[in-house]
């Protein structure tokens, strides 16, 4: 009797899990199909290379892509070193659970829970006004860096902590310094974590609109320096969808490009990391 019952429960649990997994795939599938269906037709080489005209109803997204890449580069150039540094401090230079460590971890967690619109306001006041960087790609990138910092710190930290204890003990027992241990052993071991953080950060940064509206702005012209304003792809999509009538298909086309970009970034980053790890193991 009980046996029959537990078999029944097993079956129901299995069905629920299968349905959940299928629902996830279906959601992604619907999203993808809808975006491809509505956006694919508009995408062409010319669309990718020319600047938007008539508020985005005509022309392309060339300048938008350039601004997007520049904002992302500023964001990564700041968030990766600062994030990896902070994670290394947390993992290697302080005792886990100590008051200092708890304080810094608390700050990181708080930072992670701040809504992006608040980062946008902060970026506008601090970077654009106080530091006098204006509404610019630099302000936008720096604001995004603040926003993705907790992701970089958390993933790098877990990567470093996941390095086997035996590795640390082995290195210490051979009299290796902290820097050598980090460089030769812990950072390579944490690579997967860092890459995961990089991808999550990139994804979050590429998709971000609220934090950039007030910091890097809307300008559609080709940026000439980091101090120029420039709209990113997600801001462009937001603008087309909300402010420009008759540009829905253009918004879909931009969304399609954004998705493809995310996919490419994901694939290439993990491939590069894998290859780097392999050469490291045999070098």
């Amino acid at each position, binding site marked *: 009797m009980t046996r029959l019952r537990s078999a029944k429960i097993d079956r129901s649990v299995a069905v629920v899990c299968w349905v959940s997994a299928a629902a996830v795939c279906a959601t992604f599938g619907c999203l993808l199909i809808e975006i491809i269906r509505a956006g694919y037709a508009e995408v062409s080489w010319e669309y990718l290379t020319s600047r938007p005209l008539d508020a985005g109803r005509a022309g392309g997204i060339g300048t938008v892509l350039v601004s997007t890449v520049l904002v992302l580069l500023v964001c990564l150039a700041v968030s990766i070193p600062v994030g990896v540094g902070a994670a290394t401090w947390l993992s290697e230079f302080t005792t886990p659970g100590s008051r200092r460590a708890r304080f810094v971890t608390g700050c990181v967690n708080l930072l992670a829970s701040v809504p992006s619109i608040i980062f946008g306001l902060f970026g506008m006041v601090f970077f654009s006004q106080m530091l006098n960087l204006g509404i610019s790609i630099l302000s936008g990138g720096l604001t995004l860096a603040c926003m993705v910092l907790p992701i970089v710190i958390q993933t790098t930290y877990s990567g470093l902590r996941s390095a086997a204890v035996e590795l640390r003990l082995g290195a210490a027992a051979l009299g290796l310094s902290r820097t050598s241990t980090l460089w*030769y052993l812990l950072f390579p071991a944490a690579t997967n974590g860092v890459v995961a953080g990089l991808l999550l950060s990139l994804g979050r940064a590429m998709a971000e609109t609220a934090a950039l509206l007030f910091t890097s702005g809307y300008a559609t012209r080709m940026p000439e320096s980091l101090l120029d304003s420039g709209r990113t792809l997600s801001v462009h999509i937001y603008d087309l969808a909300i402010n420009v009538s008759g540009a829905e298909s253009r918004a879909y086309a931009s969304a399609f490009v954004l998705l493809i970009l995310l996919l490419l970034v994901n694939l290439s980053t993990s491939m590069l990391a894998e290859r780097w790890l392999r050469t490291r193991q045999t070098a």
Partner: protein
Amino acid sequence: MDPLVQLSESVSGSSGPVCEPGIAPMLETRELSVTYGSRRALSGVSLAVPRHQILAIVGPSGCGKSTFLNSLNRLTDLTPNCRVEGSIRVDNEEILNADCDPMTLRRRVGMVFQKPNPFPLSICRNLAIPLKEHGCAKSDMDSIIEEAISDVGLWDEVKDRLNAPALSLSGGQQQRLCIARALALRPEVMLFDEPCSALDPFSINVVEQLIASLRERVTIVIVTHNLAQARRIADQAAVFWQRDGVGTVIESGPATLVFGAPQDPEAAAYLSGHCC
């Protein structure tokens, strides 16, 4: 009892190690205690190991054997709130002093762990990185690496694939590589923490013979659960035991005496296999 090595602790009531006049032991601890936070793990351990001898440490789990070993190269420094008191002298130099550099100490006192722990790098780099760290000239590096790998009998097995990942080696080979890695730094003392317990029977034999042969070059302290192994290779032996929750030494001296005619009843029961 061999005059070179004698262990003393409160249990046996003796008054400290007695060494042959004029000959200092290579490694000597006096009234060594280790405390983790408020918990005392080890208390009153006084042991001495003469140069080029093997001290085997046996005893049930949780009686502070590994803690003792870790204090000898100050790996205990890595554990927060760990306090080591008493005296540890390596070649007559106090290593618990603040001016003793733990990095240099760990070059002099090598260590091999229970689970082989080669770095996830190539075989060659496993030896090259520590050598570089301790200032080995590039020109000497290749010959030292070859010598160390030959010393552990691994050269013929790996000479054609020095750039292969160390993790592609078998368990026994990995452990020998770890021994070679420590040997390359020309240590004076080697600590082995149950070096064979994660290996297959064939590898156990190879590694055990290797350790026994190393005594010509280094002084060895080995923790082992394998009493037969301890009997085979040890010159000196010590039985660790937990008394009132604190690890201490209940029997020690020349291996033949410790294994042949132990004085302490608990040690005698343990060594004869009649106890946990």
